[in-house]
């Protein structure tokens, strides 16, 4: 016990001796959280720039533009008179899409000759394009509906009859746990723990690797009374505490203060975070044990961590990946974090669903045992290159 306390005290001194430790954990997390929450504060992107190619120049085409501008999601930044001009704006990245109103649009509409409207979008910027497309589609369907309503009214139908004849089927969309289809809920609930995962791997590898690099590991081991387990646990504990405070703090921020949906329990989400933090720490110990040269382990940790965002499957789902890539997703704790988050926060599923992910976390936690001898040897003999 005395040795454990000595190692912890020694580590705390190191943590505060250089600004690097606090900077790369607390400051980086604070900056990331502030950045992403302020970036997506509106939930869905607003006022996406689009253009209208108006070949008609009538009162109805001007009303189209006016009504588009009255919506939240798009803004008509230019009304141009040729397709080439609008396409040029798209290629320059000034707009995400445009709409072409044909010549004689008003006249054809009035004489029931069904003028065709065209939408052009570029999925090179898929979020802007989807938003623009949805709004243009809604506008045209509204226009069709308004036209229909006008004709039926002239035929002497009442409003109730008109409503049902215009819309004989209604599709009611129920968006489970995220009725606003809000982007922060899709993205940040996994991006923020993902960034924490990167921080954990980098800082853990650094804190052990730096001892090997500067040849202070024999002294570290001595503080632990020569006991390897005490040396590792004592060194890790202050960080475990720090990461848990950061992780559970992010949980509280997202699920409590930002009101992200929680269909299950806060406890379930807290357990998921705790297991995730421990799994990431153990994985990082495994990395530095595998490659006891600081710079190699840091590179490995960095290259590995950056892949976790794509392979956790929260943006592009796992089911759409190639079979061997699907298998690869399992080697990232973030994947298991995301799956449990979906069960707990969005589905309110029973704990049974989360068990496989907890088993996976547990396997990550056993990884340090596989490199125990190698790391112990490196700490005593310092037999790995330092530069």
């Amino acid at each position, binding site marked *: 016990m005395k040795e454990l306390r000595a190692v912890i005290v020694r580590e705390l001194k190191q943590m505060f001796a250089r600004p690097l430790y606090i900077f790369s954990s607390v400051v980086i997390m604070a900056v990331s959280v502030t950045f*992403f929450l302020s970036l997506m504060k509106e939930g869905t992107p607003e006022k996406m720039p689009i253009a209208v190619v108006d070949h008609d120049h009538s009162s109805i085409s001007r009303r189209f533009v006016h009504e588009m501008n009255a919506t939240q999601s798009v803004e008509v930044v230019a009304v141009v008179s040729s397709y080439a001009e609008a396409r040029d704006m798209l290629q320059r990245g000034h707009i995400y899409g445009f709409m072409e109103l044909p010549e004689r649009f008003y006249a054809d*509409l009035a004489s029931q000759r069904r003028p*065709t409207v065209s939408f052009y979008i570029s999925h090179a910027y*898929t979020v802007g394009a989807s938003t623009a497309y949805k709004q243009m589609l809604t506008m045209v369907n509204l226009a*069709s509906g308004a036209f229909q309503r006008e004709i039926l009214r002239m035929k002497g139908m009442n409003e109730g009859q008109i409503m049902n004849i215009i819309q*004989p089927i209604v599709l009611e969309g129920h968006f489970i746990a995220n009725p606003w289809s809000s982007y922060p809920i899709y993205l940040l609930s996994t991006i923020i723990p993902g960034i924490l995962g990167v921080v954990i791997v980098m800082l853990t590898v650094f804190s052990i690797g730096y001892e090997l690099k500067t040849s202070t590991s024999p002294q570290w081991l001595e503080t632990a009374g020569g006991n390897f387990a005490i040396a590792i646990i004592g060194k890790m504990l202050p960080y475990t505490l720090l990461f848990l405070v950061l992780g559970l703090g992010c949980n509280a921020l997202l699920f409590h203060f930002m009101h992200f949906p929680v269909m299950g329990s806060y406890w379930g989400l807290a357990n998921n975070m705790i297991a995730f933090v421990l799994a990431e720490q153990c994985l990082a110990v495994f990395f530095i044990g595998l490659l006891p040269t600081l710079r190699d382990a840091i590179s490995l940790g960095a290259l590995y961590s950056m892949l976790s965002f794509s392979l956790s499957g929260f943006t592009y789902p796992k089911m759409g990946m190639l079979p061997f890539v699907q298998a690869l997703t399992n080697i990232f704790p973030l994947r298991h974090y995301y799956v449990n988050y979906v069960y707990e926060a969005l589905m309110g599923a029973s704990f049974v669903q989360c068990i496989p992910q907890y088993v996976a976390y547990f396997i990550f936690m056993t990884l340090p045992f596989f490199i125990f001898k190698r790391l112990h040897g490196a700490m005593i003999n310092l037999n790995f290159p330092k530069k």
Partner: protein
Amino acid sequence: MARFTNYILTGVDDIWHVFTQELLRIVRDPGIILIFFVAGLGYPILYNLIYWNDTLTDVPVAVVDDDASVYSRRFLHKWEATPDVKIAYICQSMQEAELLMKQQKIHGILYIPSDFSRQIETAGGQAHLSLYADMSSFLYMKAVYMSANMVMIDEMHHIQIDRYERLGMDDETAWTLVQGVPYEEVNLFVPSAGYSSFLVPAMLIMIIHQTLFFGVGMLAGTAREENKTLFFIPGRKRRRSVFRITFGRALAYFIVYMAISAIDLLIVPRLFHLPHVGNSWDILAFTIPFLLAAIFFSMTISLCVRNRETGMVTLVATTLIVFFISGVSWPQAALPTGWLYLSYLIPATWGINGFVHINTMGATLAQASTEINALWTLAALWFVTASVGLWLSGYLHDKRQELSTK
């Protein structure tokens, strides 16, 4: 005149000296080889493998059909026929379907109530359908909801035509009423509207930018650890030599990364069928200011790196910020003003947008002039900061030594 010629000659000689030295440091360092070449060339392939399928198809869904009529079956047939979904379960009750959703075996549920056909057949009736969409990924929601919505609109037109014809209208008049303003949609440049077509071209620039950034940081940190005065050419006045050193080192990175960029930006898109309608020479011409801006940006930031590893330890986590601030995933038009101005200082922002415009949308260099001019400006700005910063760090180093010898 002779003095001037001499000045130029020693300048070139110094730059050559620094340039060759830096090239040797790159190829002799396994850590740098790993970042520049293995990651710089391997990541593009890896990301293409991850997003191999481009679009999400056959998302499993369940249906609860309490109506079991001709109409409900027609709806389900049409839905099943879309590429987006696959009806994996036909459930007897909503409870059963909800359980499947909670187990994530399906990502959408369509409920057809028992009065569906009756409402359709009644002259003024309105039939209701309920769709439950899994929101755990945006792409699930999009696949399930958009496809069901398309089928619904199609069915709606059918029913409306039936009703109008029953009112004694001919087909032509009925269609005029049903869809007074028909539309056609065109996906310009990215016909598949797929995920990898959108994300991976931007990632290619991101990979070049970030590997360069961390590699340069690592080289600077190593130089500091080995020899604090390595930054200066012996026998030269420092005021002159800072520019030569900055330029010489940058030239080494530039040569290496022109080769890597040519592979990543020209060959990879063709190999993996990413969009690539841009002119190859235009892409190479665009790469020049992008690389210079990225190199001098990295060299400036690397002045703060004390050890070989510290740059990576502290800044790897900011990669996500660099990516999101560039305006590809989250539209630039929705970026808060403060972040927008910050994004202007990062070469990746202009690099990603310019490359997407040229490569994916076939913009000419003239159309990408905003990005190109911005990159040249950044290259100049970051070159000055890198040189002045280097001079300053040498000056401070000398001051410290003076103090310690006193």
